[in-house]
């Protein structure tokens, strides 16, 4: 019953996605367009399966850059959010710098970063962190700010230190905001890792796409896109699951 209704809820999405894929298939096979311009999805799938070993070998470094980069970004977002939350001067000094850092076109920065730091994992982690850092920082700061002042006053009246108030009130308040930011960030993380590989790497989905493209194999490009999109969806789903676990009280519904 519940699983049936869950199926019912997923039905429109399934129909929409199936419709898109079938339309693409029909157009690609019937319109006479060259498969080097637009390969049909069936071919993409078959090629993805056929090249699964190479694809997998190229997925690992990307996944690595994604996860390490994301972990770095998470840590940095947390540390800076705390610093900025505790010091107004730091807030005023750092926030504009971070906003400016978001306006730099990664495509121009990435090659320079690679030149300075080489092709190792390091610069890739850095680039992933640069891209995914900001949405989480903003979410955390907004979360801290939305703490009820009454609650903070109450805790101080009980003798709580500033750090204690932060841990007891501000941090938990920020969690729902944080997870919203996390969902945005994680969507960008894989894309950013692929991106950083474009600027120079020995292996990875980005390099695989680049080579496939240069060797006239859009089907393999799309196969790699399929892998990266699945990876992103997987990570996305994971954060949703973690959020459910971590924030049991948000699912009670808003009834006062």
């Amino acid at each position, binding site marked *: 019953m519940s699983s049936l209704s869950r199926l019912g809820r997923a039905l429109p999405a399934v129909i929409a996605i199936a419709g898109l894929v079938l339309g693409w298939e029909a157009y690609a096979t019937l319109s006479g367009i060259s498969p*080097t311009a637009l390969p049909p999805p069936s071919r993409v799938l078959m090629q993805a399966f056929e090249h699964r070993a190479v694809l997998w070998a190229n997925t690992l470094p990307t996944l690595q850059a994604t996860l390490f980069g994301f972990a770095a970004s998470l840590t940095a977002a947390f540390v800076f959010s705390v610093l900025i939350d505790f010091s107004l001067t730091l807030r005023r000094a750092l926030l504009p710098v971070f906003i400016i850092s978001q306006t730099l076109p990664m495509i121009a920065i990435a*090659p320079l970063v690679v030149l300075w730091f*080489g092709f190792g994992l390091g610069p890739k982690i850095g680039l992933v962190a640069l891209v995914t850092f900001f949405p989480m920082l903003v979410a955390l700061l907004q979360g801290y700010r939305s703490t009820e002042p009454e609650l903070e006053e109450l805790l101080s009246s009980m003798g709580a230190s500033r750090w204690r108030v932060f841990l007891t009130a501000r941090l938990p308040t920020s969690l729902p905001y944080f997870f919203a930011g996390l969902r945005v960030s994680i969507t960008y993380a894989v894309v950013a890792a692929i991106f950083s590989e474009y600027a120079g790497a*020995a292996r990875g989905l980005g390099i695989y796409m680049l*080579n496939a*493209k*240069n*060797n*006239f*194999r859009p089907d393999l490009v799309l196969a790699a896109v399929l892998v990266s999109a699945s990876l992103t969806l997987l990570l996305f789903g994971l954060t949703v699951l973690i959020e459910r676990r971590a924030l049991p009280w948000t699912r009670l519904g808003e009834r006062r």
Partner: protein
Amino acid sequence: EEVTVALDWTPNTNHIGLYVAEALGLYEKAGLDVTILPYSDTASGTLVANGIAQFGVLSAVGFFTQKAAGADLVATYGVVQTETGRVVFLADREEIQSPKDLDGLVYGGFGSAWEEALISTIIKADGGEGSFETVTLGTSAYDALANRAVDFTLEVYTWEGVKAERDGPAQRAFRYADFGVPDQHTTFIGATGAWLEANPETATAFISATRAGYAHAVENPDEAADILVAASDGFLTDRDFVRASLEELITGNYLKGVDGAIGTIDAGKINAIGSFFFDAKMLRDGNGTPLADKPDFSAWYSNAYLGE
């Protein structure tokens, strides 16, 4: 008649004929309205094969790879009459004395499967194993070489090579021909067979005007250098370098062959390099499997549009 040409790289002396023809009004005289598309992340061969551009400056590398994979490309003009490609590395790398010393080093590449095959052939011809690590860099390859982020790469001698000779860093190089690779036209101008068949007059008008542009550049290198510098939006500031590169292209008989040929594609060279690629199993079809039968390379190019 509108014609679009896609470049294989940022403007350089390989493209000199196009810019000279444009600046002298040769295209206009032939009734053509030519747009030169700048180099971008999408390969010129891909743009031509998909009809975004009618013509493209094609590296032999890309041309042979894409043609084998089923792209409808035909080479209609040989920009250089003899190989301009080299394997380069910094001069102070004492340990690199011959190609076999490249084994185990890092190569900064351009992303086509062809390069690895070419380099490992050269290394093997020198008695090495032919195993090295590739880092795909594209346009960053030369920065990376200069900054020692990679150990070696491929260059177009008449452009990057000349620049390095003038401005450093000092480089040394291996010529492909010294290690068993047949001589070739490193760079072509090409179009799709379908388009050529449908527009033979336009094709002839464009290729012959372009050829006249190259011929003019060979005769008037000072003027040609000025034209290229002026057309580059301020990126080519070193006019003397451009001139020196042109000088090399002329005196080295790259643009105008020892036999006086300009733009003509040599049947023997196409066949030799084609067979070489085929034997090395570098020619792969759309599924990535090496071609089983040697293709008829005479259908891969045409001198029919060069004009009189």
